[in-house]
């Protein structure tokens, strides 16, 4: 059995732009090894008041990794310098490969902004292996209705497979290194078991509800469970209707150099990224 190493509370929140109030579970909040996942910003459920001028984050660059946005409540409009745009609604996933460089901006979607209401999102930074850091940017947007899922027996719920595989169901997105990302949507009393390699870094974030892990530890909404690197199987039982984000991946064992929105291997690659960004090599996007 894969045992629990730590149950982590959400660190104090901070604002990203004026549109995202996030708890950074890692790398700042808690010092846990989660590679290939470099960062987890969690906007726990909050109410935004109605606003004509949408809140959000203005134009900013990324290079060397992928940003993944998973929406649970509220809606976010997105535009990037490669000409992609779209709206991420609850249940949708946006998997953006910044790789060699992209500019993007993210704002609350206009109608959501005007109405206000609950807002809850996860943003992950997924590292890229060195050989893919400078590949061409790409964008995978998956609507909730198109997410492949495994239906659990006895109306226990379903496992939506964002990346990797769950049993015989393959994930919606392609990744550059092995990983599994699921949204487990469990009904009260529902159980799901997971079989993930020992060597993978594995954790789960309770988005909603309350669950019991491995038959013993009760974990509440907004808590993160970090597993030991021993054993492969763990089980979640929903004590209430619950949503659990499962993250598991093969560590990328390469040096890391990070500055602001750039995630590279060497300091000189960071300098290059800054210089390229300043000189317009990431393209242009109107604010």
């Amino acid at each position, binding site marked *: 059995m894969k045992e629990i190493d730590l149950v982590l509370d959400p660190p104090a929140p901070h604002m990203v732009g004026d549109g995202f109030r996030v708890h950074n579970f890692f790398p700042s909040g808690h010092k846990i090894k989660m590679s290939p996942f470099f960062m987890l910003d969690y906007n726990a459920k909050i109410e935004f008041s109605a606003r004509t001028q949408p809140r959000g984050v203005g134009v900013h660059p990324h290079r060397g990794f992928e940003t993944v946005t998973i929406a649970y409540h509220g809606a976010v409009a997105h535009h990037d310098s490669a000409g992609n745009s779209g709206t991420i609604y609850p249940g949708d996933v946006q998997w953006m490969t910044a790789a060699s460089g992209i500019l993007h901006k993210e704002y609350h979607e206009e109608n959501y902004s005007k109405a206000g209401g609950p807002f809850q999102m996860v943003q992950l930074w997924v590292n890229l292996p060195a050989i893919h850091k400078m590949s061409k940017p790409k964008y995978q947007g998956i609507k909730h209705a198109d997410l492949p899922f495994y239906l659990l027996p006895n109306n226990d719920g379903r496992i939506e497979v964002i990346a990797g595989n769950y049993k015989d169901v393959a994930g919606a997105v392609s990744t550059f290194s092995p990983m599994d990302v699921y949204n487990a949507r469990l009904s009260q009393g529902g159980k799901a078991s997971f079989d993930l390699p020992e060597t993978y870094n594995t954790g789960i974030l309770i988005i909603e509800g309350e669950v019991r892990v491995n038959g013993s530890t009760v974990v509440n909404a907004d808590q993160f469970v970090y597993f030991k690197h021993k054993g492969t199987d763990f089980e979640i039982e929903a004590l209430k209707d619950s949503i659990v984000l499962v993250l598991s991946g093969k560590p990328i064992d390469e040096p890391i150099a990070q500055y602001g929105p750039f995630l590279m291997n060497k300091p000189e690659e960071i*300098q290059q990224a*800054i*210089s390229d*960004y300043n000189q*317009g*090599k990431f*393209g*242009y996007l109107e*604010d």
Partner: protein
Amino acid sequence: MLEKFKSYLQKRLPLTDEQFELISKDLKVKTFQKNDIILSQGELCSRTYFVLDGLMRSYSIDSKGKVHIIQFAPEYWWLSERNSLFNELSEFNIDAIETTSAVIIPKDYFLTVSKHVDGFETLNSTMLNNAIRFMQKRINMLLSATAEERYLDFIKLYPNLTLRVPQWMIASYLGITPESLSRVRKDLASKHFRP
């Protein structure tokens, strides 16, 4: 806390750890929160700041309420207001753009330390000459350079500030409108972007 200040000085003059101990024992490090106003126009500024972490700026506000940024001070930069040396009130404001920790350098510090540490006076005069040189260049840029030339000079001087401050502040420092800065960046992208 003062390690960065020590390494800054030791890179520039032969200074033993003991000497540094002596000249730093009365120095204080202060942390300012983002947006804290450190000095307001019309006050007497009695100190110089050496930034260890974070980012400060000095600026003026004109009669129409428009902000003009005189200088950014990120890590390892000095920021000071010189009127106080002549007992005159400040024409500028200073605030923290990010949470900033800075060494507070008292008014008579350079004079006192120069008496005790060989080479400090020369360092001080080199730094002053550099500051004058920097300002002469800045005046020339503001009088004669195109918006693009000003921007290209800015990214050489402050490479990472484009990631740390909003566009309008960069435009304000460059003496151009935010629209003009957008145009410059758009033109550069059309020259250099290879999708």
